[in-house]
């Protein structure tokens, strides 16, 4: 983890990305003016509770949201705008430039096709390989992600593999065309803790060997601490804090971030005596984005200003941004 500070130019730049959904009960705002960026070979973690818009943000990059989604803003991959790009262009980007790993490795793999076939498909589409060549390459990819006896596993169906193995297959599928950006949406959530570590190791290894930029979407701060170089904290569709991983864990400035940290078991932090603290209240479901801090109702430091004016994402030190009128100070921690 050497790329703690941003020095290289960004591969992926997301600016003012907003997503809302047309539902039967009206419009629901899922993502509100989110900005983030990802440098070459960097691992950025996006963390937040369920429903904070982190997955929606990730899915919108390659146009994978349902038709009811209204997306605005910008997402540039190596300078090419993705938001609003035609479907044919996006199809070329998917799997080749931006590849995805999803949470549930059982349901995310097709039960009636062999894993070799599912990995090979990507290569057949993007690299124009023959079915035979694609299969041979699939064996290599299975070996790359640490699956033992890949030559026999390639003909297995998903149900013949364990959860961890399936997630490795998902990763093999995602990196088949050596994508520029890998989006891992809760890659370890459905797995045992011991298996989780192995999967994160594979991701880190891929970054080191292939130079892939990785966006890790998770609700698990443990995963972030383990793998990310930088962290983006999201709450109710907005980015509330952005910082290098060590900086964030050592000096969180947003009250939501400190709440998240206090709700996660961290060795030493609670010294085994205090209980984990939950953040009171619930994540709001927003039909429109208010001109106020969306965390105000749950925040211990909220003032009238917080309820009347949305705090901008402001700089608070080197590469550390926070959207808060009353950031947590050193003395408060």
């Amino acid at each position: 983890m050497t790329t703690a500070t941003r020095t290289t130019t960004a591969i992926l730049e997301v600016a003012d990305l907003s997503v809302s959904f047309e539902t039967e009960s009206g419009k629901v705002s899922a993502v509100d003016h989110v900005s983030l960026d990802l440098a070459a070979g960097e691992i950025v973690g996006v963390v937040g509770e369920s429903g904070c818009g982190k997955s929606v943000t990730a899915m919108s990059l390659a146009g994978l949201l349902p038709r009811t989604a209204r997306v605005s803003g910008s997402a540039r991959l190596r300078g090419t705008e993705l938001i609003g790009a035609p479907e044919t262009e996006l199809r070329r980007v998917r799997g080749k430039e931006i590849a995805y790993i999803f949470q549930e490795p059982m349901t995310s793999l097709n039960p009636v096709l062999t894993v070799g076939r599912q990995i090979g498909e990507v290569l057949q589409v993007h690299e124009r390989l023959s079915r035979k060549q694609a299969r041979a390459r699939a064996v290599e990819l299975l070996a790359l992600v640490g699956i033992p006896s890949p030559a026999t596993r390639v003909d297995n169906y998903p149900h013949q593999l364990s959860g961890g193995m399936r997630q490795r297959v998902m990763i093999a599928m995602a990196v088949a065309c050596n994508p520029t950006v890998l989006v891992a949406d809760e890659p370890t959530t459905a797995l045992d803790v011991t298996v989780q570590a192995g999967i994160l190791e594979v991701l880190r290894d891929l970054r080191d060997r292939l130079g892939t930029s990785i966006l890790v979407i998770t609700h698990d701060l443990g995963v972030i601490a383990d793998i990310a170089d930088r962290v983006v904290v999201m709450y109710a569709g907005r980015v509330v804090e952005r910082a290098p991983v060590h900086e964030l864990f050592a000096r969180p400035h947003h009250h939501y971030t400190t709440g998240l940290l206090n709700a996660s078991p961290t060795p030493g932090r609670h010294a085994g005596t205090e209980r984990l603290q939950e953040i009171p209240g619930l994540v709001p479901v927003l039909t429109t984005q208010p001109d106020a801090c969306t965390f105000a109702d749950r925040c211990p430091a909220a003032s009238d200003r917080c309820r009347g004016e949305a705090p901008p994402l402001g700089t608070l030190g080197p590469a550390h941004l926070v959207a808060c009128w009353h950031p947590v100070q050193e003395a408060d921690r």
Partner: protein
Amino acid sequence: MARYLLTRAWHSALTLVLASVVVFLGIRALPGDPALALAGEDRTPEALAAIRKEYGLDRPVTVQFGQYVERAVQGDFGHSIRTGLPVSDMLRTALPVTIELSVLAILIAAALGVGAGVVAAVRRGRPAEWAANALALIGLSVPHFWLGLLAILYLSVATGLFPASGFVPFFDDPVGNLHHLILPAVILGTGLAAIIMRQTRSAMLDSLSADYVRTAKAKGLSPRAVIGRHALRNSLIVVTTIVGLQLGGLISGAVVTEQIFGLPGFGKMTIDAVFQRDYPVIQAVVLLTATAYIVINFLVDLLYSLIDPRIRVAGDAA
């Protein structure tokens, strides 16, 4: 896989034995004396006794059953009481007509049903779905015989596009054969097509919202590959089962359709036999229908395991 097949084959055989017992006993429990039907005007006790003796109807039921099984195994179903011809000969001419009609109907129904079902699911909430749903509703609710009569009226009698009735064996005149069978096959297939369409549509809606379809899209596959290779293949598992269960109904549908189009098939033979209380023919017909049912279900199970690898492999492990 082998073990799975053996188990299924054993179950099928058992069902067949049971079916033959039920057929034999059931037909004898029905009211109506075949001797009376045969005797016609000459209903003297002596004539009836002679007929009963001639056809073995005077012997104990158990003996009759023993004879029946022994002969049936050899393909000998006795002679028709009505025509005096061997039942096996009658089957030999009638069965190919019905089998061809049914196979054609299944092919037409599968093509129409799966096609319309996929379109309805992919174009959900748009005019194409409404059209497919409306057609399915018509296919399900309008009786075959009425559709058949309409078809004869407008497509045969009025315009002369198709022959209204009759049959030409395939090997005598393939084109004429299809010309005679295509209309009855379409009519026979409509109900099945509607069922297949509805099953395909709902199964496709499930698969299209499945995670693996999202994965397939995220890989950059074309819509055709996403829908055909990923969504449809999974949907066919459900569709195959339902269709398999419906195929039996096709046989009874064939009976009516053949009657309307005057096809010299199994169905016509059955109806004639029932009206004449032609025991040997009815026995053979019902037994054959039961066998067809069992064999079709067996084949559907086979097909099922071909489409779904989970069944194939689970059977091996068991």
